[in-house]
């Protein structure tokens, strides 16, 4: 390999990693690379890519495993130079089925047949996208309210106005993360930024009760995340995953930071 070719290969591998960063564990709403699920990326001279990944347990839900594998394939295949994409899940009860199904471009239903019970996987994906929306919304609204914003004013903001709302860097990050999930509920730029899971407007007088109810979703996701990270570390050793303890919006942390200000 020439030096130029070697540099190109390194760049391409980095591009693949960058694409994989956008793939999330639907249940945790966190990136598969940050979670330490992706163990390796290989790019050959012809542009074929192999991605290896693992999960915290042998029993992790097959539907989520399939979604992540398929999302990885799609994300990587979007790079213009990429040829064939092979995603390899290891040490999982359905590893072979999932790997073959994804490689062949089969749907989840076609891969699992009767075991999948004839229902759409997309519905599960949506359930968890809504939870992610709620969790991000709760974190953002709590933050903004704790920083002196008036509920009535906040709830009037359109998507565009929220995007332009002046805030510190933590606030900016929470806004960006929320807006990333806002389309889950369906929105145009001139629509109200804060709506409930059915797209209905929120009531400023009841905002605290509303946020309290949403907080369950966040607590649950945080708890799962802690468990999954811990099990992964126990299974594969603490040194194997990236040492990113808390990258996304952590419910507990965002509350305690806000409170201590």
């Amino acid at each position, binding site marked *: 390999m020439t030096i130029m070719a070697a540099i190109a290969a390194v760049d391409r591998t980095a591009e693949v990693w960058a694409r994989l960063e956008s793939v999330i564990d639907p*249940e945790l709403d966190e990136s598969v690379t940050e979670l330490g699920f992706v163990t390796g990326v290989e790019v050959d001279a012809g542009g074929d890519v192999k991605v290896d990944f693992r999960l*915290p*347990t*042998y*029993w*992790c*839900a*097959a*539907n*989520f495993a399939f979604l992540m594998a398929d999302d990885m394939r799609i994300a990587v295949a979007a790079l213009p130079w990429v040829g064939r994409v092979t995603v390899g899940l290891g040490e999982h*009860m359905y590893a072979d089925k999932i790997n073959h199904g994804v490689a062949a471009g089969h749907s*989840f*239903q076609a891969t*699992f047949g009767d*075991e*999948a*019970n004839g*229902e*759409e*996987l997309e519905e*599960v994906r949506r*359930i*968890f996208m809504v*939870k992610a929306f709620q969790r991000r919304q709760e974190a953002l609204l709590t933050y903004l309210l704790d920083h002196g914003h008036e509920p009535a004013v906040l709830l009037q903001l359109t998507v565009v106005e929220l995007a332009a709302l002046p805030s510190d860097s933590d606030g900016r990050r929470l806004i960006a993360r929320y807006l990333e999930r806002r389309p889950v509920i369906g929105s145009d730029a001139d629509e109200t930024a804060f709506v409930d899971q059915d797209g209905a407007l929120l009531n400023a007088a009841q905002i605290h009760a509303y946020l*309290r109810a949403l*907080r*369950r*979703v966040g*607590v*649950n996701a*945080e*708890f*799962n995340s*802690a*468990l999954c990270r*811990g*099990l992964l*570390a*126990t*299974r594969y050793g603490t040194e194997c995953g990236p040492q990113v303890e808390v990258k996304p919006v952590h*419910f*507990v942390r965002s*509350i*305690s930071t806000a*409170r201590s200000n």
Partner: protein
Amino acid sequence: MYRTTDGEEIFIIDGHVHLWDGSKANLKNVHGQQFIDCFYAYHSNLSPKEYLWPKEKFDKYGEEAMYEDLFVKGYDDMAICQPTYLTDFYKNGFNTTEANYVLKGKYPHRFIVNGAFDPRDGEAGLDRLDELSEKYKIQGVKLYTAEWRGDSKGYKLSDPGVQRYFERCEKLGIKNVHVHKGPTILPLNRDAFDVADVDDAATSFQNLNFIVEHCGLPRLDDFCWIATQETNVYGGLAVVLPFIHTRPEYFAHVISELLFWIGEDKILYGSDYGIWSPKWLIEKFMAFELPESVSKETGVQLTMTAKKKILGLNAARLYGIDIDAQKKLLAETQQTATV
């Protein structure tokens, strides 16, 4: 028995213990190996270092170690054995009523032994439930809806075949239905941890108590909602409680959510022994106080009264245990003292 610094005695009923055999000799296949390995990962991940077991002990700890860990080193006064058969993974089953009953034979006043049923067994399963009731006088069953059976990878409580089993439970006076809500497997494309089927069953069978083990983790948010709707749904703290050591802040939030949504009368302590041991769990739980920021948020407190209910009074109510009489019985039969 746990004694507070004031000398108050707190009677402890452990709502969730196992006597399992995950040893190599009992394995049927790779799934059995992966199952016990996964349990061990839970153990290793959440236990304090000084309470970590070698894998050999974990695979098969046996009756004497169990008695010692629960009642001698640990603070449990009584424990409820929840069977998990897993006959597709283990030759003699993983943790059976029969094996639990041998243990109860040795320490009759210490253990409550629950049965199990599997609606996929049809008529034969109903007969077996009759037999369990007659032979072991069971007051409860543990349902493991994710258990593999031939080509089937599990069932839901809302499946039509389950109704007849609940009707039979009512008839036999088996009032407590412990449902494992953890990693279920089928149908593969659903949210595999769905707790909605408990809602259906609890609505249809108001005379039965449904204890959702692990509080529906990893769907605690959905579980809180269901448990709020139904008066006969309880939450078992197994798996939730160990977070008190590694992640006390998460535990604080979760227990406060549970106290807020389902209340202190409907939460049951369970160690999930041998995954975790009562000694450290109880010490940490008794010492635990909700941070002010959390109690301010939910408006609930984890009071001494709440702790007593969670650790024993709630289970005593469900299983008809007269605590004073039981204390006396244990004292008379020497089962409170170090054996």
